[in-house]
């Protein structure tokens, strides 16, 4: 379970996130939906510990991200906004590097990568240099890298950015499979169709605050809109809409 309680973050004069609380449950895919600049990345960055909140707490399975960083991070997989791989290392070596830094024992690493390779269908290019991989292959390797230490929770920041249709489709299938295994998945997106297609629960944020929260259906019903898109726009309205 991934939880944020009254998180706040300020960059100079800009209040990027204001007292934001959310909860992503195990066995569910939670979507963080918001326009560009709504505070999605900042929120996720506080959840995976590269930004320190000015106020509030973030926890993974009840472990405080600031206080018990290593224990919390051990239970969290991260697919950051940019999923850069090391071009001169093979896909396997990229995964191994993060595995080693995450403290996965050497003996377990090989079998773990073997099972990830099967699960994510990496076998054809596991020992190729990352430089030559396609966009879709790269996202799979980055995902394997995020999952190398078998975390029960997974955070993805705009994972479909720059992916082609085929790659998006295979990513969706992967996330559904992880959900079926009981993972807690939180991902951000500014594409409504994607969130509607994949998420059990949606958190709509704007200007650093939660505007609406619930299942796609309940948000739609509550706002009286006919589609999530309209509900999204209505939720944003008090803030002046999409700039």
């Amino acid at each position, binding site marked *: 379970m991934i939880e944020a309680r009254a998180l706040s973050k300020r960059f100079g004069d800009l209040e990027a996130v204001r007292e934001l609380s959310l909860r992503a449950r195990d066995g569910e895919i939670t979507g963080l939906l918001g326009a560009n600049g709504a505070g999605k990345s900042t929120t996720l960055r506080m959840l995976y510990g590269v930004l320190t909140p000015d106020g509030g707490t973030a926890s993974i399975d009840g472990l405080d991200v600031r206080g018990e960083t290593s224990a919390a991070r051990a239970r969290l997989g*991260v697919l950051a906004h940019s*999923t*850069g791989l*090391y071009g001169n*290392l093979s896909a396997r070596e990229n995964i191994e590097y993060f595995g*080693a830094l995450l403290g996965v024992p050497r003996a377990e690493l090989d079998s773990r990568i073997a099972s990830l390779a099967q699960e994510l269908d990496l076998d054809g290019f596991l020992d190729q240099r990352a430089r030559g991989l396609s966009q879709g292959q790269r996202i799979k390797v980055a995902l394997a890298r995020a999952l190398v230490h078998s975390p029960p929770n997974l955070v993805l920041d705009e994972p479909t950015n720059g992916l082609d249709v085929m790659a998006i489709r295979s990513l969706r299938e992967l996330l559904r499979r992880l959900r079926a295994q009981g993972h807690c998945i939180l991902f951000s997106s500014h594409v409504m169709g994607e969130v509607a297609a994949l998420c059990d629960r949606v958190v709509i944020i704007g200007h650093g605050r939660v505007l609406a929260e619930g299942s796609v259906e309940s948000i739609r019903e509550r706002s009286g809109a006919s589609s999530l898109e309209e509900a999204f726009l209505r939720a944003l309205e008090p803030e002046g809409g999409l700039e």
Partner: protein
Amino acid sequence: MIGKLGIVFAKEFIENLRDRRTLLSALLFGPLFGPLLFGAMVSRMLHQSAAETDEVLEITLSGAEQAPNLAHYLESQGLKLKLAPLSEAAARAEVRRGASALVLIVPEEYAARFRAGEPAPLLLVADSSDSQTRRSAERVRLLLSAYGSGIAQLRIQARGLSPLLAVPVAVNEIDVTTPTGRAIVVLGFMTYFILFAMLMGGLYLAIDATAGERERGSLEALLSLPVARGALVGGKILATCAYMALSLAINLAAFVVVFRFVPLEQFGMSANLGPRTALEFFAICLPFVPLGAALMTLVASFTRSYREAQTYLTSVLLIPTLPIAFASIYSLKTRSALMLIPSLSQHLLMTSVLKDEPISARDIATSALSALVLAGLLIAATARHWRRESMLR
């Protein structure tokens, strides 16, 4: 922490070993550039100074029939005479055109005045803006003056006086430069080539490990790991150090080989750069390695892209030249206080080794410690910068 540092080190080391650009610049061009350029330069300089004395100098002589003795004398001193009757104006034009480098005119009144014991005029036409001609003209001037004083002594003798009267002072020059010392002048800036090659060795790794991480988008994922930033920075700097040490070793080996082929001994110089000296150089420079690595990593950590890092680090490569340039301008000698200044202390110590001067253990220790302390401070500053949130932006 040490374990994680080792993981980062191994990954950076291997990753860069596979990068052709890094490999070529760190382990080939960087370390070999200095020795090759140096070998070529020294050979040419030695060749030039040797040529100066041995080369046959050609000179146009006008009015040789007026002064047959002088013509013989000049010929006996290795000058090749081209006889041509030229007026002063024609001679000027000839030299300006470059048809002749030097023209010596014996005017018509020469013979008469010479016989009368009066100063006999000679006219030497040369273009002193050409450094080659300037040296030739100097040589001719010296020959003429030697000829003149020979004649003077003969005249004094003919009048029954001692020719020594015409030599009121006898100046003997004693040049205390040892053969090695003379070579030092030539080899003075070799130490900079060594420091340069060493820095070049780590340049690309330092960029790749910092600005490179940012540019390829792997930085955030890396920073999200539960690894102390000190371990990340430490591993990266250590890998940079390894490349710098390798480059330094290759560079010194290349210098040893090059000096086998540069005929310094032939000109009374001994370069004194054998394998043993190379090892001593390596030991002297080694403490500078972490300093250079930390400096480059710190500077590159502030940059956004590969290109930007390259621009800044090129200036960093020049920093070690400043104290060395300062030292050569003010011809500083090895002094304990100067051992506190990195790059200058390495330069002075290496120069002392080349000169076969005794070196105190305290100077070596001061030089090493000051570099290491400064390296420690820079490493701490780098780790501090990496702990900042602004690293991500």
